[in-house]
């Protein structure tokens, strides 16, 4: 089975522990307003009639074996640093069949595997997809289902279910909360989120990812509508305020 990948990043140091190689799988069922990788949304490789990041195509087809060869090159760095490989996207679960095949293959050679996911998939698919995964970086965007629908295009029900499954399996999970001004940084959402997470003894740390306008240019280049026009990046004070609120529930907060 082959996959469509749109990037492989070596020396990734913020996608899980240690020095990692991140594999970006193409395609995402969500359409978050603040998405940093709008080029990754569409499934399948794409030809462009303009230059994007020095190339006229988005994504290429590759096999799990080829990917393994690419990431094996950095094995010494993983072993020195306690790193490994991270599957990210897009939404890797969208290519679940491939993900299962690749993770089984990678696990057989003792690589530490991280999945960076929105958590959006049917529970059947999700449970199979995470079986070889050591650590899940799990995005939790907002608790209100209607709002979630509005800003991401999908319901958060399956997402929460899948998170609960991970916890029940004692999988290591790092919650990632993208802090988007005016969308999910209100007191209500923060309270709901923290109270919800308190149920899970194993979740102690939350990564707070303040919104960046870094993708604005990409929307422009790709001719996509940018719904975030006019929304500014949160300043330090605002980020600190949210951090304090989350910390007041006893969570450890890491920014970035």
């Amino acid at each position, binding site marked *: 089975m082959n996959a469509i990948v749109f990037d492989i*990043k*070596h*020396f*990734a*140091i*913020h*996608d899980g522990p*240690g*020095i990692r190689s991140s594999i970006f799988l193409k395609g995402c069922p969500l359409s978050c307003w603040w998405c940093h990788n709008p080029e990754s949304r569409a499934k399948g490789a794409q030809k462009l009639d303009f230059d994007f*990041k*020095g190339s006229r195509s988005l994504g290429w087809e590759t096999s799990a074996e080829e990917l393994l060869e690419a990431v094996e*090159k*950095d094995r*010494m*760095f993983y072993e*020195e*640093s306690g*790193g490994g490989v991270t599957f990210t996207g897009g939404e890797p679960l969208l290519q679940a069949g491939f993900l299962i095949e690749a993770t089984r293959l990678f696990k057989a050679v003792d690589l530490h595997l991280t999945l960076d996911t929105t958590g959006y998939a049917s529970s059947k698919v999700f449970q199979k997809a995470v079986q070889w995964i050591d650590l899940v970086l799990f995005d939790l965007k907002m608790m209100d289902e209607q709002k979630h629908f509005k800003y991401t295009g999908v319901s958060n029900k399956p997402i929460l279910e899948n998170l609960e499954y991970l916890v029940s399996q004692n999988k290591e999970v790092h919650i990632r909360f993208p802090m988007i001004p005016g969308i999910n940084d209100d007191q209500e959402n923060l309270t709901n989120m923290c109270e919800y997470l308190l149920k899970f003894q194993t979740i102690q740390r939350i990564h707070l*990812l303040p919104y*960046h*306008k*870094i993708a*604005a*240019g*990409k929307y*422009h*280049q790709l001719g996509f509508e940018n719904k975030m026009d006019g929304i500014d990046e949160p300043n330090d004070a605002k980020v600190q305020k949210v951090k304090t609120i989350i910390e007041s529930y006893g969570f450890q907060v890491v920014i*970035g």
Partner: protein
Amino acid sequence: MTEFYQSQEAKGLSVPMLRAKAFHYLMSNKTIYIGDDELIIGERGPAPQQTPTYPEVCIHSLDDLKKIDERPKVSFKVSKETKRVFKEKLIPYWDGRSQRDRIFSVLPQEWKDAYAAGVFTEFLEQRAPGHTVLGDVIYHEGFKDIRCRIQKEIDAIDYFKDRKAMDRLEELKAMLVSLDAVSVFAKRHVHKLKQYREQEPNEQRRQELDKMIRVSEHIPENKPSDFWEALQYYWYVHQGVITELNPWDSFNPGRLDQHLNPFYQKALQSQTYSAEEMRELLQAFWVKFNNHPSPPKTGVTAQESNTFTDFALINLGGLKADGSDAVNEMSYLLLDVIEEMRILQPSSMVQLSKKNPDRFIKRALKVVKTGFGQPSIFNTDAIIQELLNQGKDIVDARNGGASGCVETGAFGTEAYILTGYFNLAKVLELSLNNGYDFRTEKQLGPKTGDAKNFNSFDELLRAWKTQMDYFINLKIKGNNIIENMWAKYMPAPFLSVFIADCIANGMDYNAGGARYNTSYIQGVGLGSITDSLSALKQHVFEDQKLNMIDFLALLKSDFEEAEEFRTYLLNNTPKYGNDDDRADDIMREVFETFYQAVNGRPTAKGGHFRINLLPTTSHVYFGSVIGALPDGRKAGKPLSEGISPFQGADRKGPTAVIKSAAKIDHLRTGGTLLNQKFTPALLADEVGIEQVKNLIRTYFKMDGHHIQFNVVTAETLRKAKKEPEAHRDLIVRVAGYSDYFIELTDELQDEIIRRTEHSEF
């Protein structure tokens, strides 16, 4: 110097005695400078930031002086009076007599042609061999003790059997005179200090002056008894070495944390000095190095090493003589001082052994991130193996380190001389043109065949190897001639006193007196030649996209109207720096050829030739003498530097660069230089520091010799935005992740430029 050489006293002296007495004359007569509030004293020139010239080595012409005065970079002000003295006194006497004139008068014409064409440079044509580092002798012996040792050797000379008895006697006598010279120099400082003491209104400064008088009355005659004396003693010795001749890489205390820590601990225990006072003394010591620009260079030498830096490289960390972890309190204190001082000189480095704690390297990285390129980071375990491979004793190896840029040496026991850069890529250009150089319009090398008739990549490689052997031979021939001339005409008796075993051998440092004698030839352009060979292999011999005739025509036209093909070359050639064996195997072959041509061949001093891979600024000069290269590099542009990939050739991030670089067999070199660029944001948090530390540890596990991190400034980023092609390798931290700068959108590039400006100091 000139006065002495012309005096009655100089007549009839042996060469070593002539040199020693001239040195004595200089130390007895040169201006004594003691600055307000200085704690460590002694200047090379009449005042800080001034430098003498060394007419006996290289007499500058009036034209040189004009250039040195007026050039936009690395200039020295030359007064009218100086010019008058040169014209009326110095030039008439030294012209034709200086070491430089002597050397050029005996070198063979083919050597001069290759030199003029930029195939290699020559370090010893206007500066003296030096490149060495002091061991621990001065912390255990005063001049008195050393004189005893010399006298014993004089008494032991065997006038019956030893054919060199008289040479030894003269050399040892010269050593005694040279020690006296520096004693006089110290006494003159005491005298001046006492004068200042008389006039000093400020009580606190009077106390300092009293202490300084006591220090300089005690050392250098006696071994240092405290921290201050240790520093001041070193500094007098430093003055002696750099006044006696103008040695490359000035001089250097080497493993400073090892040498000073006992004095530091003793002072704390006996409460002689507080930690704060010792920190201030170290700062004063740092300023002294920074006061000393390297003496003015001219001609090719100025181009290969175009800098004021005089390459004193302080070593921290590493291993002790017994093989245990050498990091101590002084290592950390010195890192503090380096961070606080933020000055160009002295350079600093940390030696990192697998036995050193992570805390040490992380502290060093925190200094690196402040952004002035220091300290650089070296692999102690590799250095030791390199030295062992060269036949050194393990204790001498552990007491060694790196000096200059990255050169491996056994401190205090080895004369290791850089003899010149060697232009690997130029030799390829010559191989493509049947040994003919179009720039100087001369047949420089052997006729290895018309490249148009090469039927395989192997034929091309064979031609290049034949040219390599020829030019390396030529370089070595020149080196041996020049080394002989230094041994014969320019001994350095004072330096010889401090490098074992010059005294025991009764032989000069410049004549092979040291325990170990190594001469290095430094290869330049490894990335450029690899990528160029790779391009020819791929596009001419494998894909046959272009035949050799057309390819050579394109090179000759500097890719005129062939920008599209040039872009194709840049984007579709396997290149060094991407962990791609198609390119890296070629690199290995280049390395092997260079290594086999040089390594182990005997030098004129009884030592061996070795290789290392470092450029200083020669990759710019060497690039300027080469036309367009098959890798797509345009005529005259710089070559790749050290073992770093060609600028922009590496596109897979730092791990791939390190993997490629680790395919070099570092342990068979005497040093390699790898540069990595980053924006300050990469090291902004603990995660960044931790992972960069792991990156280094991994490289060193693979026997990498050295890595340095250059902080990218906003100015560089602006340049990268304008010329993306030359900055393909530039990685920046965006937000929680890193990306290639040139691939970011305009807006984001601007944003990062602003952010970088913000975090600059």
